[in-house]
């Protein structure tokens, strides 16, 4: 019984992702209404899929879980507040009406800085859409910066103000890449893991994101050449883990990618000055680079 719902939810998620992907090439521009509805379905299906995941049906490799929990311990020692319980798990996603998919750290300990959370998450997603292939990481990463009390607060971002926000993003980003930086990414992976099995994906992505930030910080925050979309950094836990870990959380990672992609769509649709043709290109690059690392069925989506 659980398996049926899971399979159905999985199927609906893949269909939804295909629709979002297709919408980028449709004539007349991205239809905001339709994409919003598709993202709502995607979110509902993901909720069912992941809640079912913790309902006891686990077909994924177990070792991935071990990695996160180990890293999670570091986070505790780092002094950050978050624990898995406080995040409220999937309910965080359920209760929030936002279409943003990876809103993992908004509730719980981040509640104290929730206003800042929302603002911070926006720069992350938008920022990522403009530069790096790991769009999902951006939102998660900035959630981290929200949690850290010493992170420099980013002003609320509307995509049009990406210039200024990009700078601030860099600022908080570089603060993160400092000493406590390693703790931040573990913090992220821990929070992710508390809600889904795809934390390993995020952990790897997080590292790459930081790398992308480093390379991007050298240049202007607005003009991020496509070259920076392919950072090459040693991931936490070893590169070998990456693809295997991707396997286990493939759908969730796809969702985080497309979830962030969707916010990228929105920023593009918003026609703000900061968005330009690079958006669609880098978004596409993001998908094309991430997806081949995942298992074959995801490549089918790329083929759409």
């Amino acid at each position, binding site marked *: 019984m659980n398996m049926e719902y899971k399979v159905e939810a999985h199927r609906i998620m893949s269909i939804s992702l295909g629709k979002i992907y297709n919408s980028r090439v449709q004539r*007349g521009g991205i239809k905001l209404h339709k994409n919003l509805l598709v993202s709502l379905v995607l979110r509902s*299906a993901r909720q069912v899929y992941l809640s079912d995941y913790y309902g006891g049906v686990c077909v994924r490799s177990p070792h991935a879980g071990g990695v996160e929990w180990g890293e999670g311990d570091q986070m505790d020692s780092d002094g950050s507040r978050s624990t898995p319980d406080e995040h409220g798990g999937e309910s965080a996603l359920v209760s929030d009406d936002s279409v943003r998919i990876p809103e993992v750290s908004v509730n719980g300990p981040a509640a104290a800085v929730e206003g800042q959370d929302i603002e911070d998450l926006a720069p992350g997603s938008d920022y990522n859409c403009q530069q790096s292939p790991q769009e999902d990481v951006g939102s998660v990463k900035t959630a981290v910066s929200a949690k850290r009390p010493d992170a420099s607060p980013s002003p609320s971002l509307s995509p049009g103000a990406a210039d200024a926000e990009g700078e601030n993003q860099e600022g908080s980003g570089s603060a993160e890449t400092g000493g406590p930086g390693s703790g931040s990414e573990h913090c992220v992976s821990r929070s992710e893991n508390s809600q889904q099995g795809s934390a390993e994906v995020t952990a790897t992505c997080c590292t790459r994101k930081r790398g992308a930030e480093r390379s991007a910080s050298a240049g202007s925050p607005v003009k991020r050449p496509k070259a920076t979309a392919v950072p090459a950094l040693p991931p936490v836990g070893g590169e070998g883990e990456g693809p295997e870990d991707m396997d286990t959380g493939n759908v969730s990672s796809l969702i985080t990618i497309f979830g962030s992609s969707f916010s990228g769509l929105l920023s593009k649709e918003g026609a703000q000055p900061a968005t330009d043709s690079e958006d669609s290109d880098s978004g596409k690059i993001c998908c094309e680079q991430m997806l081949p690392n995942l298992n074959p069925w995801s490549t089918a989506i790329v083929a759409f």
Partner: protein
Amino acid sequence: QAETTPLLPPADIISTVEFNQTGELLATGDKGGRVVIFQREPECNNEPYCQGEYNVYSTFQSHEPEFDYLKSLEIEEKINKIRWLPQQNAAHFLLSTNDKTIKLWKVSERDKRPEGYNLKDEEGRLKDVSTVTSLQVPVLKPMDLMVEVSPRRVFANAHTYHVNSISVNSDCETYMSADDLRINLWHLAITDRSFNIVDIKPANMEELTEVITAAEFHPHHCHLFVYSSSKGTLRLCDMRAAALCDKHAKLFEEPEDPSNRSFFSEIISSISDVKFSHSGRYLLTRDYLTVKVWDLNMENKPMETYQVHDYLRSKLCSLYENDCIFDKFECAWNGSDSVIMTGAYNNFFRMFDRNTKRDVTLEASRESSKPRAVLKPRRVCAGGKRRKDDISVDSLDFTKKILHTAWHPAENIIAIAATNNLYIFQDKVNSEMH
């Protein structure tokens, strides 16, 4: 994911249908940016049952495809909506809109032309002044009727998102245009600026939860308008209250039935069309499976709910896969607000009599549309006993959808757009419809 191959040139697909206020003219817009206006021929007084037929009056290209280079976006030329202005002189005016630009067109007749110019000859060439020996007054002579259409105003660059509705105010001076997140108020004579009266764009687009799906002015009160959302809510706004009508005067919303919850609950609750009744007392809304009549004085639930095709409720997943669940059906009132009509699949359309609570399903097809043919009611069989001529749900053709319908403002004449065909049905005295 199955893709339906279009068998017809997509540019011919009708995308909007609208009668003018007298019903004498019927305008259609299509995906190719063209507008075709039909005019009703005067009724012949000889035969009692001879009612005027609609013939093509004028055809013109309203919108062309455009390309927004800044955003690398193609702007479709498809006509999303046409609205007629109330007639104030011999000419007719209509507003037509695509995703981004609204245009005001003047439709006028010319059936006389001046002849006998002094300085020009019959072909318009200038005469040699020395050959003019006497002066004459030019006279108007009859000519073959010519319908001229000219663009009078272009209202552009006011919408970031896709325009889904336009509505002319009862003051006949202003109109509004609505896109996914904003509604703008225009003066018909002023094109270089508009006033934003509704803005639901969140500061952070990631928090977007609903979009505007349709908007309309009240037929009599020039300060009232309504807009519907993708969450199934209606907001009645009063422009006297504030310049920015973000705070609604009334919010119409029906609580969701938890027993019907599914992955697709949100999609099917999205309102695709909203229409004020002619009286101005009621609102008609269409969502994916139902049409609802709301009383302006009752906000917590609709007055009446009619099932259009509830047999699709168990098929929502397939309809999601083939994108049909995103189809935006329109709805219409008859002139007396006693019957409502909306389209469905398989070229079926449905009518609901609010007084008798009877409903009928009819089909717009070539077979049923021979002149003087009486439409035969159809039935969709969702299982169980199947009668002769019933259509089973599984054999419905979902590529044949009737999204756009219009009802003559006074008489029982309806215009049904079935893909690229326009059907006009008139009620005869002995017909089943009334």
